[in-house]
């Protein structure tokens, strides 16, 4: 019988998704994407009205009204797609994974039909140094700070034969003391806050922290709850943010590698 298992594994077709088909892809995540050319004031108002988490809102910057889209708050409910189909579509690609918090935010000048870059991303030398030190072998400790288990389900999928995270030299370890990276899901609940801090403190330096999912990035729909302290960065310092509710396995891989500044090496354009 054990030979039957081995025979099957040898005969089974290759399932592994090549790195270039994973990195930056967001199919199945339900994240929206905006086409500034077709944005109007009416659409901007309509989509911000239907957004249940205020991921989309109209803000005033230097006297100009802009549509602000925060992927860190977006739960992919799809209402903006219904409210403004001319300018909003389902994102097939999303590179905003494993980036700084501000980089999850986009601004659109809907009067002039253009995206506005409010702040140029600054290179972070410390992080480059950490990735150089860590090289390609990365030990990840996953920490649930109060998540609904949706992000865990997708993180578990990273080890299945389609995604096989270990091919990138990344694997999950059982203790924060063995970890280079803490992958934190969920809004930090009041009941978990102390454990989250202690887990972070138990990690040896250098250490990286990645906040996962709408809840980890912004508190998500739980941001207003009395039982929640806030997003992960309210409790421990965070190096990279992966949006999504939940992020798909490809977004998770993109995010983890982006924090290490790896995607360009693995999948050049």
């Amino acid at each position, binding site marked *: *019988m*054990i030979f*039957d*298992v*081995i025979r*099957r*594994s040898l005969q089974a077709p290759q*399932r592994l998704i090549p790195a270039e088909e994973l990195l930056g892809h967001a*199919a*199945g995540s*339900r994240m929206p994407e905006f086409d500034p050319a077709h944005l109007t004031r009416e659409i901007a108002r309509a989509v911000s009205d239907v957004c*249940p988490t205020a991921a989309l809102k109209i803000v005033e910057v230097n006297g100009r009204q802009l549509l602000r889209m925060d992927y860190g708050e977006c*739960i*992919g*409910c*799809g209402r903006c797609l219904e409210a403004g189909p001319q300018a909003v579509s389902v994102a097939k690609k999303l590179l905003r994974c494993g980036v700084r918090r501000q980089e999850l935010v986009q601004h659109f000048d809907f009067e002039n039909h253009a995206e506005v870059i409010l702040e140029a991303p600054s290179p972070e030398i410390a992080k480059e140094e950490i990735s150089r030190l860590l090289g390609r072998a990365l030990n990840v400790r*996953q*920490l*649930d*700070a*109060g*998540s*609904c*288990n*949706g*992000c*865990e*389900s*997708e*993180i*578990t*999928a990273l*080890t*299945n*034969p*389609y995604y096989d995270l270990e091919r990138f030299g990344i694997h*999950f370890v*059982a*203790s924060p003391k063995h970890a280079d990276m803490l992958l934190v899901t*969920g*809004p930090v*609940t*009041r*009941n*978990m*806050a*102390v*454990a989250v801090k202690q*887990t972070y403190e138990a990690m040896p330096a250098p250490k990286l922290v990645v906040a996962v999912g709408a*809840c980890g990035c912004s508190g998500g*729909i*739980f941001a*207003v*709850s*009395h*039982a*929640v302290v806030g997003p992960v960065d309210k409790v421990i310092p965070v190096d990279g943010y992966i949006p999504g*509710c*939940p992020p*798909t396995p490809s977004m998770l891989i993109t995010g983890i590698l982006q924090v290490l500044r790896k995607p360009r090496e693995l999948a050049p354009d």
Partner: protein
Amino acid sequence: MSTASQKSQRVSPTIEVARLLEGAQPSPARLVCIFGSVDGLQRRPVVRYIVDVPGEGYRVVTEPVEGPIPSLTGITAAAAWYERELHDQFGFEIAGHPDLRRLLLHENWPGNFHPMLDSNEPLNWADEPYTFLKVDGEGVSEVAVGPVHAGVIEPGHFRFSVMGDNVLFLELRHFYTHKGTEKLFQGAPLMNGPIIAESVSGDNCFSHAVAYCQAVEQAHAALVPRRAELIRLIGLELERMMAHIADVGALSGDVAFAVPAAYCSRIKEDLLQAGSRVIGSRYWRGVAVPGGVARDINPAAAEAFHQAVTQAADEFAKMASIIIERPSVQSRFETAGVLRRQVAADLGVVGIVARASDVDLDVRRDHPYGAYQGLTFDVPTLHYGDVLARARVRIAETAVSAQLILNALEQLQPGPIRTEFRTDVAFEGFSAVESARGELLYWVRGENRRLERCYIKSPSFQNWPALPHAVAGNVIADFPLINKSFNLSYSGCDR
């Protein structure tokens, strides 16, 4: 429901519930849940009991809170956690409860704070100690596990009292992922409910969304189109298949039989991808909405989906028999973590865990809803109550679910998928579904498109107290295996 007539007989509703649970009928009623609410503009505090009365169905009994509430824990152990939750959330006094330690709100919360009654002001941090139950005696030691576990698992604390390798006693201390979810529903627009429900327990989010929607539809007497009911059935059964396949694979992995574990994770991923292609979302989030479904099955992808489900069921059946017939697996699964029938019944256990201990409950069959009405299908049960029985029930159920999906796909006729219904009314209602973990019930109340209260009876909240009974007497090294065979949700329980 008939509070008026009971008042004229001067029988307290709680006493009525107690009588039902003690049961002179053919068999005693089963306690489904106990929850509090503050009704209407008068903010009238009440406690509601839902009981499953044999031959009748679900019955809701409402007791106004005018003083201490008599505890039902002495009559059925299943009431214990519900009453502790009432005490934490509402501050209701429970007379005669044997153990009113904190449950949802840990000792870092101020003791006089009851979130379902009080406003959301920033709170001081308290630091009271929590007292674990202690096992005394020579050679007894304690092993503390969690809240942070070694795998990609949700947080919770387990305190074992052991003698050598043998577990004498296990105490759970959970609710680390308590997010105040039920309070988020208060005042929320009716149509935002599914978004919150989907974030109660992420791996059975579709069951939560459907249970919520059905409760709203029941409360508004809304009729859901046939096509939407069938799409919901497909999603619910797909969720069950994925949960069972993943669990059987994980059980195999827990006894170091790694290849089948990898196979099962691959089969689950096949179904996630097939589901995503047919509906646009891997876990069917954003699909269920009050009145039907927001997304239709993509007809171009339906044929491929049919094939994917057939193939997954076939491959899993073969892999499952390889796992379950292997002597090294059997020697670990058999007699590990036995939950005796009487204990399961006393604790009101539901779902797979109940059916593997010969407690024959299934909401789909006992209280049919949606497209399950008029269907007949197998509900596999076993009476051994061990890890092997729970694995076997999961395997048998997966085949039934696959068949239900294939039949539903064949019955799909073109038609509307969503119905409009009048929402400018006061409403109150509830509905249950059989999620992959068991009976999941939503109770809603509100007015004019806004929720006043939404209560979630989660199967995990019901089943967690049974786990220590299955673990006692086993070696501590078998705990991960036994825990996995229950596979309860932490977030679903903690809410």
